């Protein structure tokens, strides 16, 4: 199979959420190979992991992110695309670890202290990873100390704070201020249902993303 065709197969599987051969979704691709099998095959055929990442996965997740922003697909469909991307990523991981493929940078993300909601944070993490960034997910209910420790170990990282509850916005403010006090140069982006552009300014963050695609745009703007 031609290189272009293989890359297109991977792109199509990720865009449509076809994880692997056994996955029942989407119904019209039942019984067919998914992102898992096509990525393995692409590597076996000698296609470079960096090319799979840039020409298939990043492009697919870009389309998925845009469709989500335009409300053509919704969270469940986006999650499944992200799962398909993860299946492909599993095959690429050894190349990232060996340094054969370079990531765009490191993105540290966590849901702020007092908030246990992770679906938004997970989605952003998966889409950002699909866009070529390394993601360090600190989980939920993350306090200033944990963020500061992670930044201390990765001073060139970009940091993302997530919150769903209005009641935890105050915690987001405290964490943002703690981070900026100790690491003023670290780019800080916020997201989540109760926050907006004004709140970003109020707490001294550098960016606000209304959706995962917005987070990717912000991150890519930092290395443009």
């Amino acid at each position: 199979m031609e290189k272009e065709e293989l890359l297109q197969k991977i792109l199509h599987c990720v865009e449509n959420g076809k994880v692997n051969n056994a996955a029942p979704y989407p119904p019209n691709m039942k019984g067919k190979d998914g992102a898992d099998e096509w990525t393995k095959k692409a590597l076996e055929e000698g296609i470079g992991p960096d090319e799979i990442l840039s020409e298939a996965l990043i492009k697919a997740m870009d389309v998925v992110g845009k469709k989500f922003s335009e409300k053509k697909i919704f969270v469940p469909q986006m999650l499944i695309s992200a799962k398909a991307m993860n299946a492909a990523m599993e095959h690429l991981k050894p190349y990232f670890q060996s340094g054969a493929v370079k990531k765009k940078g490191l993105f540290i993300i966590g849901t702020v202290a007092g908030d246990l909601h992770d679906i938004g944070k997970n989605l952003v993490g998966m889409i950002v990873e699909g866009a070529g960034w390394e993601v360090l997910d600190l989980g939920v209910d993350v306090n200033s100390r944990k963020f500061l420790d992670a930044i201390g170990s990765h001073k060139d990282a970009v940091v993302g704070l997530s919150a769903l509850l209005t009641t935890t916005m105050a915690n987001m403010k405290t964490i943002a201020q703690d981070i900026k006090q100790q690491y003023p140069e670290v780019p800080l982006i916020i997201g989540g249902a109760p926050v907006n552009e004004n709140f970003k300014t109020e707490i001294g963050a550098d960016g606000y993303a209304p959706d995962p695609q917005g987070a990717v745009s912000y991150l890519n703007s930092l290395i443009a």
Partner: protein
Amino acid sequence: MKPLQQLTTEAYRQKRRLVSPLMGFPGLSLTHSTIKLAQQNVDEHFKVLKALAERFHPDLIFPLMDLSVEANALGRYTVFPCRESATVPKDDFNIEDLELLRNINIAFDTRLRGVVETVRLMSKKLPADIMKGAYVTGPYSLAALIMGAEDAAMAAVMDTDKLNKLCNFAKEKIQQYIRLLVDAGAEAVCLLEPTAVMLSPEDFEQYSAAFIREICNEYKNSDIAIIYHTCGNTMHLVEKMAGSGVDAVSLDSPEAGVDLPGVADIISSDVVIIGNINPTGTILSGTSDMVREEVSSLLRSMDSYPNFVLSTGCDLPEDVPLENIAAFMQTGREYRIS
């Protein structure tokens, strides 16, 4: 016509609006209480609501919002922070567990009974001209609390039978809870479906609206108003919400993407629209002048729609300045439709 619609229409005839911010937590400062204490103690809970009623006299009042009550009553692991609402973290769930959950009688749960008893006190002791409401977690959101939000989202496309089964189970438990609340004196029941905002319109219909319709059917010929609340940008869902047979929809703020006059143009005028001043950007972080300005602007934009109740887009956080609530109430009360 049910009392909520009657009162809304009557107010419009008199060129005014019903005013009812979704507030509960800000009352804690009036009684020097905490969320944890009030959510676990009937008298403390009622004291907060009484203080709010005395201070602001809204047209409709609800208990403290608590999305964990039903899941907790069904035995799901729940955490109770002191100054934040109780939360149900993700826990393991197998569909086979459903049969075990089915055997749980939520009517015997202390905390759920506590909410019911709070509503009973509200019904008996708050002024008659304040309509007494109660919050209930919606079927999809309860299913998502039971199985985890991410798993519930994935199941909407990957495992539809399982999710349907769980939402139907959630609906049955919700129906039981609503009956207890109505017996205790609730005049309006607001079904909270925050998690369902992530669904496509088709999935929203299947996993939320279809079950809400069944709940509404039970109260079709009663005076009980059923309200459908979903957080976030619901512009793509609002027709499904309004078409489910509910008496009112409660919608989030313009900053979340909700255009209230736009909603009024596309849904039936029989459905009351409740909303939608930003609870955080405006009432928590804004000044009283900003609150007055935004409330006036919203009221003006809804002048030509009789089916409107002035409210907030979502529940007010604990720390909102009380003077901002006062500004909200005063502006709403003094406004006259031109």
